[in-house]
């Protein structure tokens, strides 16, 4: 191989590598990113059972049920609609009734959302950003509430 051919093959190798990495990145973004929904969005969006999403809203008052063992049931609401959620594990320290929460998981065949992680807001000053934006968009929460 001449020097020019060598150089070209190195460049071609590098570009193939970068191309593969780019392709993989976009494939992964399409497949592995999980979308955020509020309960009312679920009537319009088509979410299949088993599809991984994040569901956010407020923990509906009076719905927290501690079943057997460490499984907890509760409903997430945006005041228009609410969705039943079950979760096995330790709830975050800031998990309370009528507080903002984000759950991640997927719908079971029975329409109950099975969460494998539950995040509550990080400190007492704000709601999770997604939940605050969602509630604001639905006109049920004003910025002023957060001071």
């Amino acid at each position, binding site marked *: 191989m001449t020097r020019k051919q060598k150089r070209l093959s190195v460049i071609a190798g590098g570009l193939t590598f970068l191309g593969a*990495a780019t392709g*993989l*990145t976009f494939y992964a973004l399409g497949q592995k990113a*999980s979308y*955020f929904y509020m309960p009312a969005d679920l009537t319009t969006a088509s979410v299949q059972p088993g599809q991984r999403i994040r569901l956010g809203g407020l923990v509906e008052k009076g719905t927290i049920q501690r079943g057997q063992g*460490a499984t907890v049931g509760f409903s997430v609401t945006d005041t228009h609609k609410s969705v039943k959620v079950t979760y096995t594990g*330790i*709830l975050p320290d800031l998990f309370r009734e009528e507080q903002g929460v984000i759950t991640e998981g997927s719908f079971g065949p029975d329409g109950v959302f099975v969460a494998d992680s539950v995040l509550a807001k*990080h400190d007492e000053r704000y709601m999770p950003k997604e939940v605050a934006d969602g509630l604001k968009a639905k006109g049920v929460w004003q910025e002023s509430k957060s001071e």
Partner: protein
Amino acid sequence: MVETGHFALVLAFALSLVQTIVPLFGARLNNQRLMAVGGPVAVTGFALTALSFVALASAYANSDFSVASVWENSHSLQPMIYKITGTWGNHEGSMLLWVLILTFFGALVAAFGSNLPATLRANVLAVQGAIGAAFFLFILATSNPFIRLNPAPIEGRDLNPVLQDLGLAIHPPLLYLGYVGFSICFSFSVAALIEGRIDASWARWVRPWTLVAWMFLTGGIAMGSYWAYYELGWGGFWFWDPVENASFMPWLAGTALLHSAIVMEKRSALKIWTLLLAILTFSLSLLGTFLVRSGVLTSVHAFATDPARGVFILCILTLFIGGSLALFALRASRLTAGGLFHPISREGALVLNNLFLTTATATVLVGTLYPLALEALTGDKISVGAPFFDLTFGPLMLPLLVLVPFGPLLAWKRGDIIAASQRLMAAFATALAAMLVTGLFIDGASVFAALGIGLAVWLVAGALTDLAVKSGVGSVAPAVMFRRFAGLPRSVFGTALAHLGLGLTLLGIVATLSFGTEKILTMRAGETVELSGHTLRFVGLYPAQGPNYSEDRGRFELIGISGSPVGEISSAKRFYPVRQTTTTESGIKTLGLSQLYISLGDEAKDGSVVVRLWWKPLVTLIWGGGLVMMAGAAMSLMDRRLRVGAPSRRRKQAEAPAVLP
């Protein structure tokens, strides 16, 4: 004292402007007296910033609630250590720490840079001054920590309980030393671009700074990871959270920079690339500061959201990243490209390292910014987590890790891959054995786990092979071998230690993810539970009172083979009344390199408690590996040729510029 600090901060801002303008003009006009202004001004600026920081820290220590920042983030009942660390446990104070470290590095260049060419030194200090000026202005305009309240409140609102931990004393300073340390590399690069010349001695000055910054950033990330692991009570050590990615991207780019600077120093190749990488690394540090400080992301790190701050940092970001890249585009063609080399050589291996690391940085960048961009453009809210990074970052890292042991064994210019492979036979056999043992003899080991353990052992054995080969094991007499071993350059030990640390971290990650076990159950006092061969008895819940919190402490006994308790673990639910917040204090028992981890949940009505238990085999290696990597960097720093002053004495004799445009 508070007003003194405020005044010192304003003065430091004014001085940073002087530091930017005067040496820059001096270098332009080649006026020695103007250029000489930079040094003393940089040192004075640091002294003033330090004074300002001490003033704020003492306001925190004395619980002076007439200062707004202290009132918002401190409480008179807090233990003294948290009063002091609370100084940077909030937005304003942490930005002050940021500029303190920035001016500290500037002062170091001024103090130890007497052997730099005058114009380069002047330009470096000017760029450093410009970064300082931008951030001083940011602090004074949008995040002033010295604003007073009148009338002064009697009691403060307490520091966020999650931050009331020793981790706050260590993690942010280390992380900032890393982030901001890369500013020196940036300043050197921009100075080289302003001058339009760059030579191998430039790399010799930049490399120690890169090493220092990289060492601290490694420590900062490792410490942050361990802190999140024990404080948040989720038992995880890395969440691919955007805030973590913000610190991980400069680390990846900095690692690439560390390696390309070697090529530049030794072979004066890859000059333009190294320069670009130095700019990109600090740009990613700035981006990290922007993501964390602007309120774009919600996390424990985003202390307060104020749109003005975000816009301001975005302007700083645009100015410095855009400016430096524009300068690069204008001037890079004037810099001469360096030596040629064969693809299979040390240089070739380091180029490959750079290709993988920068591509990996890019995937992390996409994964971090894409959700933000998508939300801004379409309003769709997505989150990108571990599944995304497993699919993109993972496949990029695997081949790189496989190739790591080859690099140091290849010769410069033209290497012999077959000879290197032969030398690595023993390491390969060890790795293969580890893989087979894992796959065949450990219950429930997946193929993935076996490969992972094998890869980790391969890295460790490869690092040891490098040392063994270089001290001549097997080819010379033992006495000669020991003499050679002791006489190896420190940087060889540094490389071996850093690669070994990487292997240890990987071993910890694979072992924890593959062989860790977890149980969630409800327990009553007196009940026992077994987890991976360890028996734990729940003794009961005991209320206790801390200085500024009350807690329910769940006590557990570790039962030995004989049936009697051999150790105690306790995990607590703490309630901080001032902020009305509950936190979970996890209980951790370290057994060898592994840990038992207990997290306490809520108490049910019938008196039983939800308990989550983890067995995390070899988990301490994750952070231990980080410490070994830090030790490697420290070892490299002690290398003769990098010692400050050592290279320059030689250089003074040959003042003729190595490369001119």
